[in-house]
């Protein structure tokens, strides 16, 4: 996955999930581990809060984020660990739900918690600050904040897990729809278009479909399409949906084993690759399913 991101020259990789507990932090931790092993400088930030021992909402255990010296991170000042001490690089003007956000460098290996700003604009500023000296920035993200990414430059990885849906088929619909939405093609400036101010809702899209709209329907970026799943797939097949700012989705990851249900790992990864036409990585199994093979 890193090789794909590197070859595309992406300055950051945002990992977004089809739902909570889709395995985003596990992917971030795995990428961090791989980057540390390769001796490449990198930084980590989050749109929410990650790396804590237990979920603040349901107290379920959460994957930890273990960083080694050289890594940089953005986190809330109150989450800076007492030990091992971090090197505090800057106190930014941005705030998370837990207070001001600081940039810090890891000087001794240890677990860290990261917390980020609630707005896409603030996240963009944090990502720019972290990547200012050319280091790759890993963003533990959220679908509605990927608008913070640079037009067509940053890489996006979509995580889907067994916790995402009641059945494997439903999870596959969700990930296929999310990937298709995030990969909306750029609007053709030479063709007729209906430009949508704000978000395109399911009912508005259905109305366009009913009237047989043939023009491009253009939103600012993929996050301005306010519906997903099977509804998106059906409507997208009947409409020419486009966007002004495109995103670059490079891969999917699967977390087939959830607390309440599990999907057969290899079959699930293979199906994700087939439905999304993207490589599907199973970080737990250390394997990848390529779309062509699938």
């Amino acid at each position, binding site marked *: 996955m890193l090789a794909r991101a590197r070859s595309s020259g992406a300055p950051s990789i945002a990992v977004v999930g089809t739902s909570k507990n889709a395995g985003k932090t596990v992917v971030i931790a795995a990428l961090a581990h791989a980057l540390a092993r390769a001796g490449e400088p990198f930084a980590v930030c989050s749109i929410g809060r990650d790396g804590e021992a237990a979920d603040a909402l349901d107290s379920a255990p959460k994957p930890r984020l273990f960083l080694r010296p050289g890594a940089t991170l953005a986190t809330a000042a109150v989450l800076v660990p007492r030990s091992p001490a*971090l090197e505090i690089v800057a106190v930014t003007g941005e705030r998370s739900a837990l207070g001001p956000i600081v940039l810090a460098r890891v000087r001794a290996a240890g677990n860290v918690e990261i917390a980020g700003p609630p707005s896409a604009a603030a996240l963009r500023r944090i990502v720019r600050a972290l990547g200012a000296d050319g280091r790759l920035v890993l963003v533990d993200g959220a679908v509605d904040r990927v608008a913070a990414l640079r037009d067509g430059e940053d890489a996006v990885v979509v995580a889907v897990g067994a916790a995402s849906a009641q059945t494997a088929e439903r999870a596959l619909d969700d990930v296929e729809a999310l990937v298709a939405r995030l990969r909306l093609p750029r609007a053709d400036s030479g063709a007729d278009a209906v430009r949508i101010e704000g978000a395109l809702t399911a009912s508005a899209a259905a109305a366009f479909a009913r009237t047989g709209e043939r023009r491009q329907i253009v939103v600012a970026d993929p996050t301005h399409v306010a519906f997903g799943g099977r509804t998106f797939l059906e409507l997208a097949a009947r409409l020419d949906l486009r966007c002004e700012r495109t995103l670059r989705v490079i891969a999917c990851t699967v977390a087939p084993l959830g607390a309440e249900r599990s999907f057969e790992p290899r079959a699930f990864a293979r199906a994700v690759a087939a439905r999304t036409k993207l490589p599907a990585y199973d970080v737990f199994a250390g394997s990848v399913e390529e779309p062509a093979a699938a």
Partner: protein
Amino acid sequence: MNALWTEACGEAIGVPWLLAAIAPNGALGRRARERERPFRHGDESEARAALGRVAKAAAAAPERLASLRATIAAAPEVGATLVRARVGGVLGDVDFFELGRLLDALAEIVTLAAPEAFGAAVPLDHPALRAALAPGRTASRAFYLDDAFDPELAAARAEAAARQAVYDTARSRLAERIARFAGTENVRDGEFVLMRDRLEGPLPPELRVLRETPAYLLCELSLDEPALAALGSRDAAAARVAELEERVRARLSREVASAAAALELACDTLGELELLVARAQFAQRHACAIPEIADDASLAFSGARYLPLAQALEEHGRRYAPISLELAGIGVVTGPNMGGKTAALRTLGFLAACAALGVPVPADSARLPLFDEIAWLGIGAAPEDDALLSSFGAEVVALRTFLGHGAARPLVLIDEFARTTSPREGRALLVALLERLQERGALALAATHLAHVTPKGAVSHFAIGGLRELPSRDGAPLDLEAALRRIAAAMDYRLRRVDEDALPPADAIALADALGLDEQLIARAKEEM
């Protein structure tokens, strides 16, 4: 009355504009601003001293003021950190980082601006605390609890790193064994999945199975004795590092606590310095004069500008006509519509607000007293959302409230009081009000269209010059901007002292004509005159 002016009066005389123009950019300046109170009658000495400091600062080069202000604005607000240190709290690394930034800002200001030149009497540099934090400061001004703080820390960290390496090796050995068994490249930390169809032979003892299905096993590493021993050893070393790091923080926190009182004073001084520099920059930007603060209730100014209006006119390519005025006691301003009567009141109020806030005034020269209340009566005296009262009712209530304050040295600005009632009764009320203000020794200026409101020998009567010529209509469809420019060119905005009985100039019909009112209607109005 606690406030020097009501909100409605402040709006009328441009106080929000003024406060925004001298607003601090930094946290320390904002905190200092919260402590500020306007100067009132009785504070003349303090006001003169404050204006003297601004005058001194305003003499500095603009670039020097800009650097000084930027440095102060960048200084963090560490009040809560200092309080925590003073009550014996152990500070965190972000606190030390912020304190380092503050100390940098203080040291920079000392070298950049020699702040004592602006009247800052408190020592700003704190070399002892800077030295205490220095081992943690990097070239890029970051902060790290460096080994140099404590020789034992260096040794403990080296030990922890070594034991981490031992544990990593032990764990890697197990992980490689499992990876070989499972036919995978590597095994991740935490839980991992093994596919049954790749496994051959019995499961190795280093593998703990958490869940199994016909197709896969969800596992984690089960540490063997050497790995468990390495883990225990690593955790013990990490605990020792944590203990020593906390010891360094506690020592640094005590150093901060001992300097906290002086640092708080320095922060206050820095904040006040930003307010001073903001005023000096305002003075430079608007070519202001330092007003002479008078002891008696009289004032005089020349070439004065009401800056909010001057700025708005400038945005429309028009120029504000500065005004001059001398006033002791009560004055009445008469003049045509659009002649600047209200602007004259606002200008006076704005200058008085500037003096009260220790801000140089936008005028060529000025002599002003301090007041214990600045009141605005008449149009605009009450908040616009006071829907339960008619405009006349609202004016009367505002007047009653003002008279109830019993201010000893008020400045009263009266804009067409009672103009919405019958002219005869409105005039009677205005005359009575002016007499009452005169009895109370107030300084007041009233704008009105009414004639004969100036009691003989007691009230100064000022008249706006009015239209020098009738602004012509060019017959084309009305271009409002052009019409306003023509009126402005024809209007003499100067205030002149005139005879008490002089009739107010009446240019209303000519102005209505210039503003494009129907020609037949204008002609009929002229007949009626």
